[in-house]
């Protein structure tokens, strides 16, 4: 199958997000799509698969013009789209999720036997083993992502679109996915692969298209380009160091956690401390309990026992508000569920944890809030139409930056970041690191949970590695390398 997008344009109201885009994708090739946050990648794919209509332009499939009315129609035609944000039903079982909207019937009733058979076949092809009758809400994010991928195997797959599929996968799951992609390619499936991870692009793709500001900047065979060239085309300028140098010294211990014990058996005996101006990374495999630790520290989940100290004094945190009052900020890893109110504006989202700062004489001062948020939008280069834009209409990466702005906005004394750069483009990542350095420079201790090893190695002063709910070890940033971390993370398994 050959897909040709010709002169596609799209405007949301006055916001012209796609301008005259042309792109060709062939079967049997992996076509990487790159571009800054908000460049229009997801929107383009949504148009191709019939989720939105285009404002202009045409789509040709094998030379014939075609417009899909809805995603299902595209899928029946062989074009599957694994969205950036997962579209699943946590309360339904794995098999129900797999077959929703495409159930196999026999005499009008569900043919569970056949569906089970096909599910197993799809999982086999993916090389995963997931039980079929558990609710998927109880599975890890990685497993859920694998199910999304398995879904596309159930149809007559000809073109597969993946929008940042690895952002929630473990190393092992990621390499499994890459094997699958190679296999699909051999089967003649064409793949459109959207990612902000350079190494993946070079490992996987045959062709790469770079988008910027809703336009195609260039399309090239991957082998004819390199990281620096791609970055320059995406960002419009040269980036030399991806992990800006942090040159502020580390001070005294300011924040301490000792003997923290999970109430639900997710982690045990967690003790650590952070010094002022220090960036402490938590590394480990997914599911090792890092997020759970931070949730307990921040008062979202109640720990069984443990002591938290700020500046040497024990503090009680029973709910997030207590933590916020002590100046602790926590960027959660799941922006859609826990980070944002999608229907609200950027201003409303950003000022939520710092509402009290804008109250003057009992009343909330909206003007002040707008100025404040405008400033943060600039600082974090959030691509938007202004402080009043609805967050749900931002691109994924820009939504992530709004969550960050929210916590930077409380002027934190301690900042906890869980996967802070998930879905963020290279240029913006660098800005986030700079911001972290700047805060550290002011003496703010920063705890960063990250599954991105280069990032962990690139920005942290010290690294704690977790394994199955316990701290497996600690390495200074300057002594660390991938092997050492992985060894602790797996305890040599």
């Amino acid at each position, binding site marked *: 199958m050959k897909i040709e997008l010709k002169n596609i344009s799209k405007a949301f109201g006055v916001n012209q997000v796609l301008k005259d885009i042309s792109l060709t994708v062939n079967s049997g090739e992996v076509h990487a799509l790159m571009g800054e946050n908000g460049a229009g990648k997801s929107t383009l794919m949504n148009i191709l698969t019939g989720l939105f209509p285009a404002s202009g332009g045409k789509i040709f499939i094998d030379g014939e013009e075609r417009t899909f009315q809805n995603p299902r129609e595209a899928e029946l035609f062989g074009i599957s789209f694994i969205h950036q944000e997962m579209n699943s*039903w946590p309360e339904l079982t794995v098999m129900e999720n797999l077959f929703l909207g495409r159930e196999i*019937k026999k005499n009008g009733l569900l043919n569970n036997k056949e569906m089970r058979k096909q599910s197993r076949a799809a999982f086999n092809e993916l090389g995963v083993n997931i039980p079929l009758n558990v609710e998927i809400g109880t599975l890890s994010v990685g497993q859920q992502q694998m199910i999304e991928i398995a879904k596309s195997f159930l149809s007559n797959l000809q073109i597969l679109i993946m929008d940042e599929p690895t952002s929630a996968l473990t190393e092992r799951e990621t390499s499994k996915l890459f094997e699958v992609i190679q296999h699909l390619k051999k089967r003649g499936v064409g793949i459109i692969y959207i990612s902000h991870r350079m190494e993946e692009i070079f490992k996987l793709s045959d062709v790469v298209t770079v988008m910027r500001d809703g336009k195609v900047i260039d399309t090239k065979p991957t082998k004819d380009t390199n990281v620096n060239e791609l970055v320059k085309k995406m960002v419009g300028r040269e980036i030399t160091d991806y992990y800006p140098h942090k040159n502020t010294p580390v001070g005294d211990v300011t924040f301490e956690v000792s003997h923290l014990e999970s109430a639900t058996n997710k982690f045990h005996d967690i003790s650590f401390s952070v010094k002022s101006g220090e960036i402490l990374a938590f590394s480990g495999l997914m599911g090792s309990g890092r997020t759970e630790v931070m949730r307990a520290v921040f008062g979202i989940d109640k720990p069984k026992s443990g002591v938290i100290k700020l500046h040497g004094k024990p503090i009680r945190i029973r709910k997030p508000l207590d933590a916020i009052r002590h100046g602790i900020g926590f960027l959660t890893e799941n922006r859609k569920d826990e980070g944002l109110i999608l229907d609200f504006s950027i201003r409303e989202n950003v000022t939520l944890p710092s509402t009290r700062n804008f109250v003057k004489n009992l009343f909330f001062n909206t003007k002040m809030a707008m100025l404040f948020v405008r400033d943060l939008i600039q600082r974090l280069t959030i691509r938007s139409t202004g402080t009043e834009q609805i967050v749900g209409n931002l691109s994924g990466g820009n939504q992530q930056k709004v969550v960050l702005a929210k916590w930077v906005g409380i002027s934190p004394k301690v900042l906890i970041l869980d996967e802070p750069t998930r879905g963020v483009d290279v240029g913006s990542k660098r800005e986030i690191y700079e911001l972290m350095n700047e805060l550290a420079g002011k003496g703010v201790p920063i705890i960063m949970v990250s599954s991105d090893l280069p990032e962990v190695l690139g920005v942290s002063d010290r690294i704690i590695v977790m394994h199955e709910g316990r701290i497996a070890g600690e390495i200074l940033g300057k002594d660390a390398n991938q092997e050492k971390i992985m060894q602790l993370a797996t305890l040599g398994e």
Partner: protein
Amino acid sequence: MKTVSNFLNRFTSLTTLAALAVLMVLITVMNPSFLTTNNLLNLLLQVTANGFIAFGMTFVILTGGIDLSVGAILALSSALSAGMIGAGMPLPLAVLMCVVIGAGLGAINGFFIAYGKMAPFIVTLATQMIFRGLTLVFTNGNPITKGMDGFFLAYIGQGYLFGIPFPFILMIIAFVALYVLLHKTAFGKSVYALGGNEKAAYIAGVQSNRVKVAIYTISGLMSAIAGLVITSRLSSATPQAGNGYEMFAIAAVVLGGTSLMGGKGRMSGTIIGALIIGVLNNGLNIIGVSTFWQQVVEGAVIIVAVLVDVIRNKRSLQS
């Protein structure tokens, strides 16, 4: 033992079942005449009207919707078909018409909700007023009794089959049919999908508008059947029939463990929920609780039953 409880747990919420059992034991202790065959048969009969409506309501609530117009649909479809009977339409045809009218009124709700993108609460609140008003206009406020005692109609609400009230058997048939529809067909899955995540449902190709029209149609249809049973039992169609029934049906569904947010719940819970409400109504009478206190007790039982369910779910999440 373990497997029985496992089976039951898969079939319905054990808490709800336990609540029902506790209630029945308490009432029996206070007045043993509760546990006579005769009274239990009455109980089954009394549960049917709410049962039918609550089954339809389960579909509606599973999609995250609500149907406040069920009682008014019951009245209007009964009145119109009673009028047809009075005008000489053969009973079987009139019964069929009643069901068709109920389904049609439900479809009107569904149409506004799906294609008008309006909140189910407000649409069905408005149609409740409209349908009830039309019932009054049509009946001129009077009960309709002419020609209402033919055997065919009488049997629907008053007949017995193998010593069991026929409407209860009808209710079990409806239950099985809707159970299969909800749990064993693609349509059923799309009902859950819509309630769980409408956007995802759209992307997966669920035809949300059609599904919505269908579930409100089912709800209307079930209300009409409940109307038939009542009309038959009373040998008359009254303009005030079904007034306030929406609340009992919703209570039955929620007591049965279905979430008002949609996406979560089971048909089997609803039948237990309806039984709890039936037992309460019947039992409080039998033990002679004064009428003013009856409402208080009913409200309290609802709170306690739902609270226990919430606590149990929380506990099971943690373990």
